[in-house]
C-alpha cells in the first residue's frame, strides 16, 4: 500500500501535482505509439475492407455481397476447398502429431530422440511458404528425389494417380508444418498426465484401453481440439505454398483473393472485399473457439 502511494511521487516530475486522474492520462500517453501503429496497419485496413464489403459499386449500403458469398459457384467452391483442406490436414496432422508426441513422452523414446524431434518440430512448424513447396517438388514432384527412387524400384507414383500439384499433394506439404505444430503443443499436455491417475486406474482394475477411454482422453480432449483448431487456422490462411504448388489450378479462398488483388478478376470489387471479410470471420470463429477451449484445459492440466 505504502509502495503504491510512493510510486506516483517518484515518477512525477512535479511532486505538488496530485490527483490520480492526471497520472492516469499521462499513463495512457505511453501506449499511444502502439495504438497508432495498430490503428494504421491493422484496424484501418481491416475496417476499410469491412465497410467496402457492405457497399455496392455506387457506394450504397447492401448485403448483396455477402449473399453472393453463398451463391457464386466459384466462391462457394473456393471456400469449400479451403475448409476441406484445412479440416483434412488438421485431422491428419493432429493424429500424426499426437502419436509422435505420445511416443516421445509416455512411449518412452530415449531423451536424445525426444530433444531432436522437438527441435526439428520448432523449425518445421515455422517452415512454410514457397520453400516448403519447393522442398516437396524436389522430393515428390515429377522428377523429385523420392519419385525417382520409387521409379527405380519399378513403382511410378504418378502412374498410380498421385500428383503433388493437387489436393492430395497440398495436404502432404501442409502436413510438414501441421504435425510439428500439434507435436509442440500437445507434448506438454501429455507430460502433465499424472502417473498416479494411471496407477489408480490400474489398481481399480482398469485396462490400458479403459484408462485412455475414460480418463486420459477426456482430460486431453480440450487440448487436442484446441490445437486442431489452431492447425485449421494455419492451413486456412495459407497462401504461398498453395500458390507455388498448384499455380492456381486448385481454387482456394486465399488464392481467389490473390487474383482479385492482381486485377479485379471477379468483375466486382466489392464482392472481393466480402470474400476477404468472409475469411476473417472464419478465422475469428476458429481462434475464438480455440481460446474458449484453451480456458477449459486449465482445469486439469497446467
Amino acid at each position, binding site marked *: 500500500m505504502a509502495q503504491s502511494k510512493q510510486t506516483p511521487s517518484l515518477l512525477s516530475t512535479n511532486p505538488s501535482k496530485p490527483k490520480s486522474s492526471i497520472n492516469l492520462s499521462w499513463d495512457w500517453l505511453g501506449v499511444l*505509439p502502439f495504438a497508432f501503429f495498430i490503428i494504421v496497419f491493422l484496424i*484501418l485496413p481491416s475496417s476499410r475492407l469491412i465497410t467496402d464489403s457492405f457497399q455496392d459499386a455506387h457506394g450504397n449500403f447492401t448485403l448483396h455481397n455477402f449473399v453472393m458469398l453463398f451463391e457464386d459457384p466459384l466462391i462457394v467452391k473456393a471456400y469449400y476447398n479451403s475448409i476441406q483442406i484445412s479440416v483434412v490436414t488438421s485431422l491428419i496432422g493432429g493424429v500424426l502429431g499426437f502419436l509422435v508426441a505420445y511416443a516421445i513422452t509416455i512411449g518412452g523414446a530415449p531423451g536424445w530422440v525426444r530433444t531432436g524431434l522437438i527441435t526439428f518440430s520448432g523449425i518445421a512448424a515455422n517452415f512454410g511458404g514457397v520453400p516448403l513447396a519447393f522442398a*516437396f517438388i524436389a522430393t515428390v514432384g515429377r522428377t523429385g528425389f523420392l519419385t525417382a527412387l520409387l521409379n527405380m524400384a519399378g513403382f511410378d507414383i504418378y502412374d498410380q494417380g498421385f500428383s503433388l500439384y493437387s489436393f492430395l499433394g497440398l495436404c502432404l506439404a501442409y502436413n510438414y508444418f501441421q504435425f510439428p505444430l500439434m507435436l509442440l503443443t500437445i507434448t506438454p499436455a501429455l507430460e502433465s498426465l499424472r502417473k498416479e491417475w494411471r496407477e489408480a486406474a490400474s489398481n481399480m482394475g482398469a485396462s490400458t484401453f479403459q484408462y485412455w477411454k475414460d480418463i486420459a482422453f477426456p482430460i486431453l480432449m480440450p487440448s487436442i481440439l484446441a490445437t486442431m483448431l489452431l492447425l485449421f487456422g494455419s492451413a486456412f490462411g495459407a497462401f504461398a505454398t498453395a500458390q507455388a504448388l498448384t499455380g492456381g489450378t486448385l481454387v482456394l479462398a486465399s488464392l481467389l483473393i*490473390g487474383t482479385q488483388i*492482381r486485377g479485379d478478376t471477379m468483375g466486382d470489387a466489392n464482392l472481393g472485399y466480402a470474400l476477404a471479410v468472409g475469411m476473417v470471420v472464419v478465422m475469428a470463429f476458429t481462434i475464438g473457439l480455440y481460446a474458449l477451449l484453451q480456458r477449459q484445459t486449465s482445469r486439469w492440466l497446467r
Partner: protein
Amino acid sequence: MNHKTRTSLWAWLWVIIGALYFFVPMYGTFDFSLRMIKGQISLEAYRVIIGDPLFQEAIVFSLEMAVITILISVILFVPTTYWIHLRLPKLRPVVELITLLPFIVPTIVLVFGLIRTYGGPPFSLTNTGETTNILLVGGYLVLSMPYMYRAIDVGLRSIDVRVLTEASLSLGSSWWDVILRVIVPNLRVAILSGALITFATVMGELVLADFLVRPALGPYMVEIGKDRVFEPAALTIFSFAINWAAMGLIAFFARGGTAQQITGR
C-alpha cells in the same frame, strides 16, 4: 514385460514415421540441389544463384527490410510492453488480445486492406518504391508482433519491473537510463529471440512483398521457381539454413542467458 516391449515398439514406429516426414523432404531437396550438372554432384545450382544479380538485389533488400523491421519493432514494443507492466497492468489482457489479431487476419487479407486503404488517394503510398516500403515494413511488423510481444512479455514477467524502476529512479536515473540501462539489459535474451523470429519471418515472407511488388527474397523465389529446376532447391536449402540458424541461436541464447539475466548485467 511383454506389454512393455510392445508399447516401446509402437512408440518407435511413430518416432521413425515422424523423423522420416522431417528428413526425407529435407534430404530430397538437398540431393536435388546438387544435381544441376548431369551425372555428377556439384554446387553449380548454388553458384548460379549466388552469381545472379537479381538474387543479390533481393537478399540485400530483404536484409535491409529485416533490420529496419527489427529496429522499429524493438523501439515500439519494448517501451510499450514495459509501460504496460509498470503502469497499466489492467490493459494487459486487451493488448494480449490485440497482439493475437494477426492470427485472425490472414496475410493475404492484410495486404489487400493495406493496398485498398493506402494505395489510392489521398495517401497513394504505392506510387513509389520508398513509400511502398512503409506499407511493407508495417505489414512485417504486424506479422511478427505476436512473437515479439510474447518474447518481451515473458522476459518482463521474469523480472520485477516495479522494484527495478523505483530503485533506479530513486538513485537518480532518468527515464531514459531506466529503459536503456536497466530494462533493456535485463531483456537481452527476450529481445534477441524476438528479433531472430522477426528476421526469419521477414526473410521467408512472400505475400506482402509479392502483392506490394517489392524486390524481396520471397518474390524472387517465385520467379526462379517458374522456369528453373535445380536453383529453387538450392534456395530452399538456403532458406532452411536461415531458419535453422535463427532457431538454433534462440535456443543457444535462452540456455546461456538465464543465469546472467537475473543480475541485470
